[in-house]
């Protein structure tokens, strides 16, 4: 099935590209890790073509079989490739500057990863303020529920 589908999709892709997109969208600049000693776990062109297969494979194995610790996970991509810029800010997935969206926007391929996964390494996320507000909210709701039950008792 995919054998026939792929050439077809490529053809459609070319047709779309050859019309307007190619002229308007500049070739994306891809963020390279600032630490030049870091090398990707696979050669660059291999990753460009097949990163989705690696991620998908790892995804299903981890989710259903509990296999963890393989290097080909999404989090590892993010940890190397998403870094703050000179002004210390991180470009989110909704911007073209994000490592993933830069290419994906260019290739017009929608990514379905970041509705659930963080688009940046954990160390850049500040969580200090959240938990206490939730605790207050839960306690308020509980108090209201208990008051309602009390009121219902004869």
């Amino acid at each position, binding site marked *: 099935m995919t054998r026939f589908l792929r050439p077809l999709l490529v053809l459609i892709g070319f047709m779309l590209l050859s019309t307007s997109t190619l002229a308007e969208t500049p070739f994306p600049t891809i963020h390279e890790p600032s*630490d030049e*000693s*870091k*090398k990707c*776990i696979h050669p660059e062109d291999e990753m460009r073509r097949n990163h989705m297969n690696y991620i998908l494979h790892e*995804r*299903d194995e*981890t*989710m*259903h*079989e*509990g*296999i*963890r*610790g*393989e*290097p080909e*996970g999404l*989090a*590892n991509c993010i*940890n*190397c490739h998403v870094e703050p810029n000179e002004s210390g800010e991180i470009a*989110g997935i909704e911007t073209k500057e994000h490592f993933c969206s830069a290419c994906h926007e260019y290739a017009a391929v929608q990514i*379905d990863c970041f*509705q*659930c*996964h*963080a*688009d*940046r*390494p*954990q*160390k850049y*996320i500040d*969580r200090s303020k*959240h*938990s206490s*507000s*939730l*605790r207050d*909210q*839960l*306690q*308020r*709701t*509980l108090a209201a529920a*208990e008051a309602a*039950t009390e009121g219902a008792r004869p």
Partner: protein
Amino acid sequence: MNNSKETAEVTTPVNSSRRDFLSKAAVAGTVTIAPGIFLHRTAGAAVADTDVSEIEASEAADMNTSVSTRPLDQDVSNKNRWGMLIDTTRCATGCTDCVDACNEENGLVGHGRPETDTQYIRKVTLKSKSTGHELSLPLMCQHCETAPCADVCPTGASFVRADGIALVDKHICIGCRYCMMACPYKARSFVHEAVENQKLTAPRGKGTVEACTMCVTRVDNGGIPACVEACTAENHNAMIFGDLRDPNSPLSIELKKHGGKQLRSDLALNTGVRYQGLNE
């Protein structure tokens, strides 16, 4: 054991060496809980050597020690069945340590809309209609062996892992909410709004259903769920985590000794979470 909570909050600085970094990250974000795990593992070995019959319920802290020893490159199997025992007589009304730990662990935040905000675990206050006896207990996904959520899910996104942990594969969840209709424990929440900055070990997003995962990443790495850890760390000792299939696990021994009730046992779902002290 008590210091595991403190150590859990220490973030390991990221190593600049790539290989080192990768291997750290490869244990799927458990850098933060690694110290805790180490403690549990050591304690686990100690328990195995002692005469199990001597363990008293008061030593629940030591009982939370039967943990996963599966190498992470091997599939989960039905050799283990992870479960929990909750002693409601030790669970204090008004205490929300387990709930707070869960929210912290999974990055759950409120939006001021309690009707749509996610809760993996909640404290339920009970009052017997006949005797007036009051008690309090934590209620979360009961991790049924034959889970109604997994039965009804059209895509197979709701499933029970071989080791008994019920999960939602959010990659293939279409957000139909039939599992929420089917769950007898109201254990599931629907993500009603966009989410960002999720925890590494708790991915969650708009339009999918979610529930307690028994802190599956922690469990896989030989740890215990955050709620149990918090309850133990605060010396309430109302929760025991362990392997139901291992007859020598503290959990199984305690269950054999004093029993444990399954909620809605009439449905014969064989839940992984059991309760003590629920006698009208």
